[in-house]
C-alpha cells in the first residue's frame, strides 16, 4: 500500500541532506563545543555555521540566535523570560485564543502568578481585529504574543502590522513562527519582531532542536538555569548534530522557499477544490481566501463524522492526516482553535487537517480525492447524526468538569 503523508504540520521527515550533514557529529565529531581541546574545537565551528544559516532564514544576525530543544521551550522561554524581566514594568500580556498550547498554557501558568492575560478573540474565519489588539494595550502591557501562522487551519497573521502597533506602543512582540518557518518568508527585522521561535522538526530537521531569535538588547530572564551555554541564555550541552541539522534545514528552506510555496500551494488548492466540489456538507475552516493561509494547509469539517474515525479509515488507505476532535487533541474537548472560530461542536469534532509537503505528488492528491468520498459516505451512513430529524444531545456535564486549562 502506498503511504501518503499529509500531516506535515505535525512533523516532517528529516531531509536526506540534513541527515547527511548531521551524521559525522554522532560518533566522530562528538565533542562538547564548550571544551578547549580538539574534540570541542571540531564542533564549535559547526554550531556557528548553523547559527548563520538560521539567522539567514529569519533575516537577523547570528548573535541573535539561541538554540533550544523544541518550539515549546522557545514559547515558554519567550513568555516566562519576558514576564520575569519586565515584571517591574507591568503584569499584562496580550495573546490570542488560537495560539498553540505552548503559548496558551504558559500564559495560563502566569495567570496563577498574578499576571493578567488578554486572549484576543478571532472572527469566524479565524482572523484578528487589529483595533481590538491595539485597544487591549494598557500601560501595564509588557508583551504581545501572536503566532505567525496557525498550525490547525493555517491562517497567516499580519505580523508586520502587529509589529508596528507593538513598536508604536513600545511593547515587546513575540511570535511563534513554528508553522510559518519554511512555508512563507520570515523577516523578523522588517516585521519589528523582538522574539521569534522556530522548531526543527517542522522543516525537515530532526526532533529535539529549535531556535529563538532574540533581538539584540532584549532583556529576558532565563528559562533553563545552569551552565553558560548560548552566552548564558540557555543551559544544557549543545545538541550538536541537531543544531547542524537545523542549520542545513534552514538553508534549504530559504533557498527553496518560493519554489516550494507554489508547488505545495498548487497541490493544496487542488485538494481543497476537489473535496469541496465532490463531497456535500463539508465546511472549510480558516480563512476562505487561500492566500491568507499557509500554502500547505487545508482544514475541513466533514459533518456528522467524528475525526478519529475518519483518520483511522483514511489510515487504512495509507493516508495520514490529523483532526481537531477531542479524541486526538489530548484533552477531552475538541480543538480550542475551532472553538475560538465559533465552529459548532459537531463540526469541531469532525475537523480534519491535511498538511502537505514538497514530497507530495499530484498522483497522491488524485488518490486521496478518489478515496475520500466513499469513506465519508460510509461513516455518515453509520452516524446517528446524519439525516437526523430530532435534535442531538449536545451538552455533557462530565466532560466540562474534567476539562483542562486551555482557555477559549
Amino acid at each position, binding site marked *: 500500500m502506498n503511504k501518503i503523508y499529509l500531516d506535515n504540520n505535525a512533523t516532517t521527515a528529516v531531509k536526506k541532506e540534513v541527515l547527511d550533514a548531521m551524521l559525522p557529529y554522532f560518533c566522530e565529531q562528538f565533542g562538547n563545543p564548550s571544551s578547549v581541546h580538539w574534540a570541542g574545537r571540531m564542533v564549535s565551528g559547526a554550531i556557528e555555521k548553523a547559527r548563520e544559516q538560521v539567522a539567514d532564514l529569519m533575516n537577523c544576525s547570528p548573535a541573535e540566535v539561541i538554540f533550544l530543544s523544541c518550539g515549546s521551550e522557545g514559547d515558554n522561554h519567550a513568555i516566562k523570560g519576558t514576564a520575569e524581566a519586565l515584571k517591574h514594568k507591568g503584569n499584562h500580556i496580550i495573546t490570542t485564543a488560537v495560539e498553540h498550547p505552548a503559548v496558551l498554557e504558559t500564559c495560563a501558568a502566569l495567570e496563577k502568578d498574578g499576571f493578567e492575560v488578554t486572549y484576543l478573540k478571532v472572527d469566524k474565519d479565524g482572523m484578528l481585529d487589529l483595533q481590538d489588539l491595539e485597544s487591549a494595550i494598557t500601560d501595564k502591557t509588557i508583551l504581545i504574543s501572536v503566532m505567525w501562522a496557525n498550525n490547525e487551519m493555517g491562517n497567516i497573521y499580519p505580523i508586520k502590522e502587529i509589529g508596528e502597533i507593538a513598536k508604536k506602543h513600545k511593547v515587546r512582540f513575540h511570535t511563534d513562527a513554528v508553522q510559518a518557518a519554511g512555508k512563507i518568508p520570515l523577516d523578523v527585522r522588517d516585521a519589528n519582531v523582538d522574539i521569534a521561535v522556530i522548531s526543527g522538526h517542522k522543516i525537515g530537521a530532526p526532533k529535539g532542536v529549535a531556535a529563538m531569535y532574540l533581538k539584540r538588547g532584549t532583556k529576558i530572564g532565563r528559562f533553563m538555569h545552569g551552565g553558560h551555554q548560548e552566552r548564558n541564555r540557555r543551559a544544557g550541552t549543545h545538541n550538536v548534530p541537531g543544531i547542524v541539522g537545523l542549520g542545513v534545514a534552514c538553508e534549504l528552506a530559504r533557498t527553496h522557499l518560493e519554489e516550494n510555496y507554489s508547488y505545495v500551494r498548487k497541490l493544496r488548492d487542488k485538494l481543497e477544490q476537489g473535496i469541496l466540489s465532490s463531497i456535500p456538507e463539508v465546511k472549510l475552516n480558516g480563512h476562505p481566501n487561500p492566500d491568507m493561509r499557509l500554502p500547505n494547509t487545508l482544514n475541513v469539517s466533514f459533518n456528522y463524522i467524528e475525526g478519529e474515525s475518519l483518520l483511522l479509515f483514511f489510515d487504512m488507505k495509507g493516508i495520514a492526516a490529523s483532526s481537531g476532535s477531542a*479524541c486526538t487533541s489530548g484533552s477531552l474537548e475538541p480543538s480550542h482553535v475551532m472553538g475560538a472560530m465559533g465552529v459548532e461542536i459537531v463540526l469541531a469534532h469532525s475537523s480534519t487537517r491535511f498538511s502537505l509537503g514538497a514530497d507530495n505528488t499530484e498522483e497522491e492528491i488524485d488518490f486521496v480525492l478518489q478515496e475520500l468520498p466513499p469513506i465519508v459516505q460510509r461513516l455518515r451512513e*453509520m*452516524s*446517528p*447524526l446524519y439525516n437526523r430529524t430530532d435534535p*442531538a444531545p449536545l451538552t455533557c456535564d462530565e466532560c466540562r468538569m474534567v476539562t483542562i486549562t486551555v482557555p477559549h
Partner: protein
Amino acid sequence: MYTDKVMDHFSNPRNVGEIENANGVGEVGNASCGDIMKIYLQVEDNIIKDVKFKTFGCGAAIATSSMVTEMAIGKTIEEALILTNQAVAEALDGLPPAKMHCSNLAADALHEAIKDYKEKHSA
C-alpha cells in the same frame, strides 16, 4: 494503540443501521464529548432477535457498538441487562485507558434500548 479485535470491529462493523420497526431504541452520549451511540432492538418472546446500531464517535466507540450487537443477539433481555461496558471492552481484548471512559458506552446504549422496550411493552 487499538487491539486487532478493535480494529476488526471498527473497520468491519457488524449490524450497522436502523431497524425500521424497532420495538426498543436507546441513545447515550452527546455531541459535545464526541460520542453518540444509538441502538435499535427487535425483541421477540423476551429474546433479542435483532440489534442494529448507529454511532458517531471514535474508533473505540464504533468497535464497542459493533461488539455489543454481536454479544446481545440471541440473549434474553435479562441476560442482556447484565452485560457491562467492561465485558464489552474485554471481549475486544481491551481498550486504551483514555478510551475506557467516554467511548465505552455501548452496553449503556443497549440497556437504554431495553428500558425503552420495557416501557413500551409494560402498558
